[in-house]
């Protein structure tokens, strides 16, 4: 890379971190405002519903309001789960990825089998962010699109590189067709988020491979440098 290319690469990686900070702010605003208000409102409404026991029509209306607000809370729960950055600057990569697997299990009730090197060594912030977001997308894809009932994650360090492998027993897909469909998606992103995964890997000059066959599950392999 020449000097200009280095500057562009550095700027891109800084944008990674800036995006995470912005997400952190949005999630905090959501936590401090709507979550508290809606939770408190549902508490009052549930009590009201009980107090209206001898007025069935009114009780039913209160119950409907409770259901709507609970649905809103559940959507906020998903949003917080997806977007909240996991404390990249405070925690080791291994703890962050393990926590993500547990969160995925808690949200989906599906097991994730995780094997990971005990010590993944030093890892720069852009790499941590990329691995976290890629694993997040891969686990979500396996659950949402592939309907997998079993997912495995492996994270290893060899020399200066981190190897991430995510497999599932889902229904698989036609890899060339899906990758072609996602080749030039715009701001809205592709159906499977594969463009985003590839872009994150490319920004770090890593490597990406996806093996999937309809009916036979999927294997995603990522290699990225831990430090540049």
């Amino acid at each position, binding site marked *: 890379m020449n000097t200009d290319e280095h500057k562009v690469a550095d700027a891109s990686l800084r944008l990674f971190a800036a995006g995470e900070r912005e997400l952190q702010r949005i999630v905090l605003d959501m936590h401090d405002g709507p979550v508290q208000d809606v939770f408190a409102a549902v508490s009052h409404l*549930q*009590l009201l519903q*009980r107090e209206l026991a001898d007025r069935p029509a009114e009780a039913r209306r209160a119950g409907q309001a*409770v259901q709507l607000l609970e649905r809103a*809370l559940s959507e906020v729960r998903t949003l917080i789960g997806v977007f909240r950055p996991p404390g990249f600057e405070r925690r080791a990569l291994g703890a962050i990825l*393990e*926590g993500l697997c547990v969160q995925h299990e*808690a949200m989906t009730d599906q097991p994730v089998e995780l094997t990971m090197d005990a010590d993944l060594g030093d890892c720069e912030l852009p790499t941590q962010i990329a691995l976290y977001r890629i694993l997040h997308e891969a686990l979500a894809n396996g659950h949402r699109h592939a309907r997998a009932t079993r997912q495995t994650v492996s994270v290893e360090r060899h020399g200066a590189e981190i190897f991430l492998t995510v497999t599932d027993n889902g229904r698989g897909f036609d890899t060339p067709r899906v990758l072609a469909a996602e080749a030039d998606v715009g701001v809205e992103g592709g159906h499977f988020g594969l463009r985003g995964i590839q872009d994150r890997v490319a920004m770090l000059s890593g490597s990406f491979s996806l093996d999937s066959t309809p009916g036979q599950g999927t294997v995603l392999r990522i290699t990225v440098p831990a430090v540049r």
Partner: protein
Amino acid sequence: MSRDKIRILLCDDHAIVLEGLRALVDGEEDMEVVGATTKGEDVLAMVSELTPEVVVLDYELGGIRATELIEPLRAMPDAPRVLVLTAYHDGETIRSVLEAGAEGLALKTASPQQTIAAIRQVVDGQLVFPQAARRWREARGAARGGASELTGREREVWSLLAEGLTNVQIAARLTLSENTVKFHVQHLFQKLGVKNRTEAALRHASPGRATNGPPPRR
């Protein structure tokens, strides 16, 4: 009748949440809010004074984390059960609450009825965490010498042993043969990973010994 109610202390730095939850909990026939505060620093004094059975703590209490309060709470005589209330269900939050020794976690992004249900569950001696936390839960059991594997009888023997009773006295108290008691004591030592009665008694006296929480109230 009120003596049978579950006595609860609520702590949340969001006054509106505290007010809503207090009204809802107080409306439950088997529950009574004995105190409520928005200040984390008031919790220990209030627990001493009000002796609640369950303390519901918001995960973030201004400058204090709920997890910082759990250890001193568990060290108190008649330590209350602790249920942590949080909007976050990520691995770090679940793990920190579990490892701090709380009995359960309830979500602010779920129905408050689930918080009510979780209060009853922790009073019944259950650990209320997502199934996904099982690895850490098992690790917590192992770290404390496998107390979670104790049978009800072994727990009884453990309590009496910790009071200083001999095998003969324990046998008389539980109407068992001395050999049966020896058998239980042997298993107890193995599961706790201790070598003698003194160590077992010390473990019994240490806070947070019962991996699955104190025995059920009912």
